[in-house]
């Protein structure tokens, strides 16, 4: 079947062919998972929480989105002077509350490196769902998951 086929190997990203592979893979995913189909059509919903000082400067922020019943925390950052004083926890808990009460989310997820904040998330009730050791060398990347409580005033 493959005798007239040509294998092409490239060491520079072939953007045209990459796009085609991605398109084909998405079609496959959409045919197998109605969740993928839905998110591709409707998109994920952004959920951002920022803490500002009186002058409007950012003291911390959480950038996330919700889809498939999940809150995905993409980025979390707090200015040096406010680290370890609870601001980060407030940002996460606020995002979780919105995800539970306004987006019907059941779970939350985040990835973090060993030099970032794995224990911070564990203290907030997140469990390790996976880890990639030596990524980067000497460090570990963690995937964390939390099953969110059901709405308090349901």
């Amino acid at each position, binding site marked *: 079947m493959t005798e007239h086929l040509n294998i092409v190997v490239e060491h520079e990203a072939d953007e045209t062919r990459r796009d085609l592979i991605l398109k084909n893979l998405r079609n496959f995913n959409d045919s197998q998972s109605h969740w993928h189909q839905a998110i591709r059509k409707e998109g994920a919903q952004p959920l951002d929480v920022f803490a500002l000082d009186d002058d409007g400067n950012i003291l911390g922020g959480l950038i996330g989105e919700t889809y498939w019943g999940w809150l995905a925390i993409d980025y979390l950052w707090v200015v040096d002077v406010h680290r370890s004083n609870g601001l980060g926890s407030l940002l996460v808990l606020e995002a979780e509350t919105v995800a539970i009460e306004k987006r019907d989310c059941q*779970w939350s997820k985040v990835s973090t490196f060993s030099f970032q904040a794995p224990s911070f998330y564990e203290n907030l009730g997140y469990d390790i769902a996976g880890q990639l050791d030596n990524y980067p060398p000497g460090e570990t990347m963690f995937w964390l998951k939390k099953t969110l409580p059901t709405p308090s005033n349901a």
Partner: protein
Amino acid sequence: VASWIERIGEESPFRQEIDKNLATFNDANSPWHRTVRASGGEAYDVYLVDENNQLIAGLYGEVYWDGLEIDRLWVNEAYRHTGLGTQMLNKALKFGRSRKVSHAHLTTFSFQAPEFYLKHGFKVVGEMVDMPPGHSKFWLRKELNE
């Protein structure tokens, strides 16, 4: 004194500032992040095309840090289960070994190809159950220096 801003259903212009600050933190704490941001990884692409240059199968990924990341793998439906996926995967792993990286890693959903990768020596290092609901998202890893 701080005030909260919530943006729901709309991306905030503050996102860029958070992205930048986090990148700065990562670069300060991980020389590897600094390096890959400055010089990028090395792309690896392999495609199979027919006589008319139509795409039959493809795999692409990237080598950076100490690993080969496989981003996408796809085979035309008419050619599935003919060994093309295995051939492409082996070529990619060979490339990874030629770059002396210690491992390969990738993600796959339960409705995609976890069994295929397990058969080729990958091990599950993470599973997000109900991602999406009723399915799982897996993280798989294979050591290349064994």
